[in-house]
């Protein structure tokens, strides 16, 4: 057996709970109404280009970017703009949404996808500029969770020499299997997508990092790339947060991204497998990013699965499709249990970054109350960034953040390892995020 690579410092081993690992990606129908959030990315807010009553076609622009770090939003279906208003999104933030009434509600989404024309493009003829432009137009953002516009990540300044491209298939979060299923079912498309990205950096070597708990994905991709010299499959140890960008680079290439730095500072670009698939779709089907694979799981879901959903589908559609008993649901998480955000409304829509919808009947672990910190040091031991979480949170609580601690607080990747092991049930991640807010307010 090959030596499994991993990052050295910190990390935890939460139960995998990949309940839906063997469930094929299914297709739903077009839901009754779609609520399409205007801003689904990190960066500058968008400008809405439609108004109430407008008729839109699938793939039409709904809101356009207003700068470089910004990403377009398109309509996933044919329909009519009903209303533009503010609504709680998954994660509790209240933001502007565009409500679209589809012309053909109930139509199988598989048919919609199949009616998209296929273009047999010649990758060799694409220039890097054309590739970046297409990715920007298609509104592709990092689909692993953060939602950073992909074209920005793919446009490092010329002084940063990129000598490695890492494809993130780690999927270290418990429960989530969306990337896993995509790797198993759409492996050849992913390889084609990688070929497009490879064109951007003078055919750099590509590493696909996959955790060992996905043997089928490892096997399929390994067979596909065996005849291909410059794509390497890297089996990784199943350890959380293996999928964190900095941890993944450390594991695969043993390079350490400097504090406050970006992967490009060590000559690396990291892309998620789902993002690569979106790139493939953008070129071969001319599809903007308007749908994504979502894992539906949790302890009140009888048949956990993976479903391809158009962006804007309300959670209530998923509840019906998977026959979830809402009376039992007490906790709804968008994303994984470690980094996902809770949500309080079943009408909140799926966005480009929603990798999973998890339904639980109650939270078995944490209590409402925070207990005093024991200084046990568990949080330091598991922190993949080596941060003195216990000390920083006390500074933040007292609103007296030491100047030398500020950089470290901003280095927190919010992976949640510290709070996961904290015996005193302290909301360490929330404190760290509050610390970041305080620092941002001061500046």
């Amino acid at each position, binding site marked *: 057996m090959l030596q499994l690579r991993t990052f050295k410092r910190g990390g935890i081993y939460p139960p995998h709970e990949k309940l839906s690992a063997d469930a094929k990606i299914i297709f739903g129908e077009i839901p009754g109404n779609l609520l399409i959030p205007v801003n689904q990315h990190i960066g500058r807010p968008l400008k809405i280009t439609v108004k109430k009553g407008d008729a839109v076609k699938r793939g039409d622009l709904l809101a356009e970017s207003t700068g470089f770090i910004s990403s377009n939003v398109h309509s996933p279906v044919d329909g009519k703009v009903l209303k533009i208003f*503010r609504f709680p999104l998954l994660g*509790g933030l209240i933001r502007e949404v565009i409500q679209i009434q589809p012309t053909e509600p109930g139509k199988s989404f598989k048919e919609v996808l199949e009616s998209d024309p296929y273009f047999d493009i010649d990758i060799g003829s694409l220039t890097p500029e054309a590739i970046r432009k297409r990715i920007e137009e298609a509104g592709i953002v990092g689909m692993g969770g953060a939602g950073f516009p992909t074209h920005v990540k793919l446009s490092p300044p010329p002084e940063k020499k990129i000598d490695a491209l890492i494809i993130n298939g780690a999927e270290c979060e418990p429960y989530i299997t969306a990337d896993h299923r995509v790797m198993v079912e759409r492996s050849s498309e992913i390889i084609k997508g990688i070929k497009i990205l490879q064109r951007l950096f003078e055919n750099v070597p590509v590493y696909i990092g996959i955790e060992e708990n996905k043997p089928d994905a490892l096997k399929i991709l390994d067979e596909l790339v065996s005849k291909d010299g410059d794509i390497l499959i890297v089996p990784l140890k199943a350890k959380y947060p293996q999928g964190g960008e900095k941890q993944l680079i450390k594991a695969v290439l043993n390079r350490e991204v400097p504090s406050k730095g970006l992967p490009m500072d060590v000559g690396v670009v990291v892309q998620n497998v789902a993002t690569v698939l979106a790139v493939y779709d953008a070129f071969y089907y001319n599809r903007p990013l308007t749908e994504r694979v979502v894992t539906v799981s949790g302890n009140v879901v009888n048949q956990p699965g993976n479903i391809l959903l158009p962006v804007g589908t309300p959670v209530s559609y998923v509840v019906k499709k998977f026959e979830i008993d809402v009376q039992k649901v007490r906790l709804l998480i968008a994303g994984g249990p470690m980094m996902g955000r*809770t949500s*309080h409304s079943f009408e909140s829509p799926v966005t480009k970054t929603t990798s999973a919808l998890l339904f639980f009947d109650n939270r078995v672990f944490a209590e409402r109350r*925070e207990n005093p910190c024991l200084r046990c040091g568990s949080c330091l031991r598991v922190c993949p960034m080596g941060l003195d979480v216990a000390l920083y949170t006390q500074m933040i609580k007292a609103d007296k953040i030491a100047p030398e601690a500020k950089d470290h607080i901003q280095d927190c990747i919010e992976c949640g390892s510290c709070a996961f092991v904290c015996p005193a049930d302290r*909301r360490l991640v929330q404190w760290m995020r509050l610390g970041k807010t305080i620092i941002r307010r001061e500046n």
Partner: protein
Amino acid sequence: MFEIVIPGLILAGFALISASGLFVASKKFYVYEDPRIDEVEELLPGANCGGCGFAGCRAYAENAVNNKTVDPPCPVADAEAMQAVARLLDLEVEVKEKQVATLLCKGTHENSRSVMEYYGIDDCWAAMLVANSLKACAFSCLGLGSCVRACSFDAMLLKDGIVVIDEEKCTGCGMCLQACPKNLLFMRPVSGQVIVTCSNTDRGADARKACKIACIGCMKCEKSCHQNAIHVNDFLASIDYEKCTNCGDCVAACPTNAIEMRGQEVYVTA
């Protein structure tokens, strides 16, 4: 007998050397400080609340004396104290009416129902990271008391999920305004008794759904006002306290009780 004299003399010698050292040091390192700084500081309230923007009353006094200014005036000190400070520095000060912090929300548990059970840290800024609003109304007071902790005068307390302000104790320092992540607090002159206790800028129907007392932007108050002192913008009424005469016509006209007349009885003097 003689033995006791020697240590005595040695000690006295030490004392003399140290004392002269201290004397020299105090002369050599003497820093002139305007005595009026102390006097001004005497006159200030001494709460060190930071409402003026300086790091405490001493810092304010230093600025006032060294730069010969009473601008901005201490928001806490009463008019007499400020005039005394101004007289000391040969300055004129404009007498302003006392300002009090006012919460533009009445989203109590009864009026705007909770839509979630919040488990996180009891701090408004921390809660904003998890959810923009804990209640049906997106604009409502979170009721976790970041402003209460910012108040140096014990003038605020949490009640039924919103903050109530004791206008007797409130000094108008304005520290709570910065502590509110939703900008629900504002300063009004204490004589202005009419308050629109709502910040919801959603359309009428949506606002009404979110809260029982929401301002729905119906314009009835604007029409009822003879002083042209109340205006509706973005489906939300606001009062111009320069013009308002506390007549109460708008309070009577409001269909949702979103406008409130502050009488003595609503003051909390807990």
